C-alpha cells in the first residue's frame, strides 16, 4: 500500500525526520489559507498523487505571492497529471500540498528498501538528488552508496558514517546527516515500510538536512498492526476493478490484450498469460481466483473480466488440487446464470475430479463453453476464439 507525500511527511514528523512545514488542501480556498497560515513569502504548490515525476508533469509549482498560490492551486486541482509513472492516461489530482519554500544548497537522494538477496534492509544514498535512482544505478552506479543494516544490531553510527562520508559531506554535516538517517531507519522498521524514498533530500543554506519529497510504501501483510496507516489509504489512487476484485478475495490486474484469464494460483495465472502470448494472443488480465473457486467467486471473476470491453474470449484454467474440478464446473454453470457471459469461454479443468467436471460441462450443453484437454490446447482455442 502506498501513501501520499503529505501523509509520509506526517509520519516523518512524528519520528523527528526533518521536513519543511506544510499543509494539505482539497480546494483552492484551503490552499490559500494554508499558505497564509504557513506565512513567509514563497510557497510550493504540489499535486498529491501516488506517482513520481510530478514536477516534470507540471504538478509542482513555485508561488511567490498568495495570488500565485491561488492561481497554481486552481490549475493543479482537478488536472490530469501525466508522468512517466502514471501511464499515458494520467491521474486526476484531488489535493495539493502547500509547503514553505526551502533554501536549497544541494540535493541528494536517500532511499530504503529490503535487499531480498541479503534478507535485510539496505539504505541507499546518492549525490544525484532529483534524478531517477534507477537511471543513476544504470549509468553511474559509483554515485550510489549503500549500507546494509542487520536488524539484529539496528542502525549504528558506522552505517551513518559510511553513507555520510560516501556522499562527501563536510565534517560538520556528518552529525546532522546521521541523525536524519537514524530516524529514517526507525520509521522504516516501526511502520513495516516496504520502501521509503526521499528524492530530493536537501541540504539548506544553514547546513540542515530536510526531506523535500517523501514516498512511502508498506508491506500489505503487516497492515493489520498499523491501523493508522490503513486510515491513510486513498482508494481513488487505486484501480477500481482491482479494489473490487480484492474485496471478493480475487487478485486482478488489468492488461491490454483481448483474452480474459481466470486461473487458480498466482504462478499458474502468470503462466497462463505467458502461454496466451506464446500462442500469438494477448492476455487481457491477470486473475487469481485463489483456493476457493466457488460459484460466487467464479461469477464475480467473469463479471470483472467482462467489464473490460476489449475481452473477446475467456480462458478458464484451473488445476484442481484441494479445489475439486467438479465444483468449479458447477461454479461456471452457476456463474453463467448469474452473469451474462456473452463471449466464448474456453475451459480447461485438470487435477482432482477432472473427468466428472468434463462430464458436467458436456451435459450442460451451453453453446459458448468450449472444453480444452490441456494447457496448450486451451490457450490455442482461446487465442483462436478471440480473433
Amino acid at each position: 500500500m502506498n501513501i501520499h507525500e503529505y501523509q509520509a511527511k506526517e509520519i516523518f514528523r512524528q519520528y523527528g525526520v526533518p521536513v519543511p512545514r506544510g499543509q494539505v488542501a482539497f480546494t483552492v480556498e484551503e490552499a490559500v489559507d494554508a499558505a497564509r497560515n504557513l506565512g513567509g513569502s514563497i510557497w510550493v504548490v504540489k499535486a498529491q498523487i501516488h506517482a513520481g515525476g510530478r514536477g516534470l508533469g507540471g504538478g509542482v509549482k513555485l508561488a511567490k505571492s498568495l495570488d500565485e498560490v491561488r492561481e497554481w492551486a486552481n490549475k493543479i486541482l482537478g488536472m490530469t497529471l501525466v508522468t512517466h509513472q502514471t501511464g499515458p492516461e494520467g491521474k486526476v489530482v484531488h489535493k495539493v500540498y502547500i509547503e514553505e519554500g526551502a533554501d536549497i544548497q544541494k540535493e541528494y537522494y536517500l532511499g530504503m528498501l529490503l535487499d531480498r538477496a541479503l534478507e535485510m534492509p539496505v539504505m541507499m544514498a546518492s549525490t544525484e538528488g532529483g534524478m531517477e535512482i534507477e537511471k543513476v544505478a544504470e549509468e553511474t552506479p559509483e554515485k550510489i552508496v549503500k549500507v546494509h543494516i542487520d536488524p539484529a544490531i539496528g542502525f549504528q553510527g558506522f552505517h551513518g558514517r559510511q553513507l555520510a562520508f560516501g556522499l562527501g559531506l563536510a565534517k560538520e554535516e556528518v552529525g546532522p546527516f546521521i541523525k536524519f538517517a537514524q530516524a529514517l531507519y526507525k520509521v522504516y522498521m516501526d511502520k513495516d515500510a516496504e520502501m521509503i524514498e526521499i528524492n530530493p533530500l536537501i541540504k539548506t543554506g544553514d547546513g540542515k538536512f530536510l526531506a523535500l519529497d517523501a514516498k512511502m510504501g508498506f508491506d500489505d501483510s503487516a497492515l493489520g498492526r498499523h491501523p493508522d496507516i490503513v486510515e491513510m489509504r486513498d482508494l481513488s489512487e487505486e484501480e477500481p476493478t482491482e479494489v473490487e476484485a480484492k474485496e471478493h478475495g480475487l487478485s486482478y490486474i488489468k492488461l491490454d490484450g483481448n483474452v480474459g484469464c481466470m486461473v487458480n494460483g498466482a504462478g499458474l495465472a502468470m503462466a497462463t498469460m505467458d502461454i496466451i502470448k506464446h500462442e500469438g494472443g494477448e492476455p487481457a488480465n491477470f486473475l487469481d481466483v485463489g483456493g476457493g473457486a466457488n460459484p460466487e467467486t467464479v461469477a464475480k471473476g467473469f463479471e470483472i473480466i467482462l467489464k473490460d470491453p476489449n475481452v473477446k474470449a475467456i480462458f478458464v484454467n484451473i488445476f484442481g488440487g484441494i479445489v475439486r474440478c467438479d465444483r468449479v464446473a458447477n461454479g461456471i454453470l452457476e456463474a453463467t446464470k448469474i452473469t451474462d457471459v456473452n463471449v466464448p469461454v474456453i475451459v480447461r479443468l485438470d487435477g482432482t475430479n477432472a473427468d466428472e467436471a468434463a462430464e458436467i460441462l458436456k451435459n450442460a450443453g451451453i453453446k459458448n463453453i468450449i472444453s480444452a484437454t490441456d494447457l496448450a490446447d486451451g490457450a490455442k482455442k482461446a487465442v483462436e476464439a478471440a480473433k
Partner: protein
Amino acid sequence: MSILVNKDTKVIVQGFTGKEGTFHASQCIEYGTKIVGGVTPGKGGQEHLGQPVFNTVKEAVEATGATVSMIFVPPAFVADAVMEAADAGIELAVIITEGAPVKDMMYAKAYATKKGMNTIGPNCPGIITAEECKIGIMPGFIFKKGPVGLISKSGTLTYEASNQVVKEGLGITTAVGIGGDPIIGLSYKQLLPMFEADPETEAIVMIGEIGGDLEIQAAAYIKENISKPVVAFIAGQTAPKGKRMGHAGAIISGGSGTAAEKMAALEAAGVKVVVSPADIGKAVKEVMGK
C-alpha cells in the same frame, strides 16, 4: 532416496487443532506421512486426529522425537512459531501460512539460521516425497514416484509441472514448493545440491517467476556445480513492470527481476529453458534422453 523428507520422517503440526491444520494434517496422515503429534497452546494433553497435542514445541519434540514441523498458525503468529520450532531443535520447518509480515520473516529466518534450522516457505504448498511423505497442502495423487526433482515458487504450477512429467511416463522424487514471498527459506541454490547428491534424482525442474534474483543465483550455481540436466520455466514473461502479480515477491521493480533476464541467465548456464509452460514435461523427457 529423496531429499529432506521420507517415509520415516517424524512430523509435528503447529496450529494442529485449527481448521486448516486439522484438514491438511488429516490429508497428510492419509497420504502416509508420520504425523506424530501437534502443538496448540492451551490444549496440551488432549488427543487430535489420533495424535497427542502439546502446549509447546519443546514438549512435542521431547515426547515424539519429531524433526520436522508443519506450520499452519495465522500470519501474525508465524514468526513466533518458527522461532519456537528453531529453539526446540526442529531441523526443518515447513511454513504453509500466507500473508506473514516480511519484517517478521526477516527476524524469524535469521534466528532459524543461527539455530541451524532449515525453513521452507512461507506461503507455499510444502514438500512432498512421492508416495512416501507429504508435508503440505498439495494434492498427493499428482505426484507419482520417478526420477525428477522439482523446485517451484508457485503452488498450482508445481501441480501442473508434476502432472506433465507424470504424463510423459516419468515421475517425481521430491517436489519442494519454496513460495513466492520476498523472504523465503530454502531456495534453488540450497536445494539444487541436495538433488545433485540424491542418487534417485536424474533430472531437475525449476519453476521461477518474476521478482528478486534467486533464479539468477541459481543459474550461477548450476553452471559451476550441477551435472544433472535442469529444465526451467519462468512465469511472468508478459507481466507489466511495477505490478505485484499475486505473490508478494512477484514484482518487477526498477526494471530488474524480469523473466527475460532470468531466462537468459539460466540458458547461459546450460539449463533447458522452456518459453511455454505446456512444454515442461516434454523438455524433461528430452533432456533425459528418454
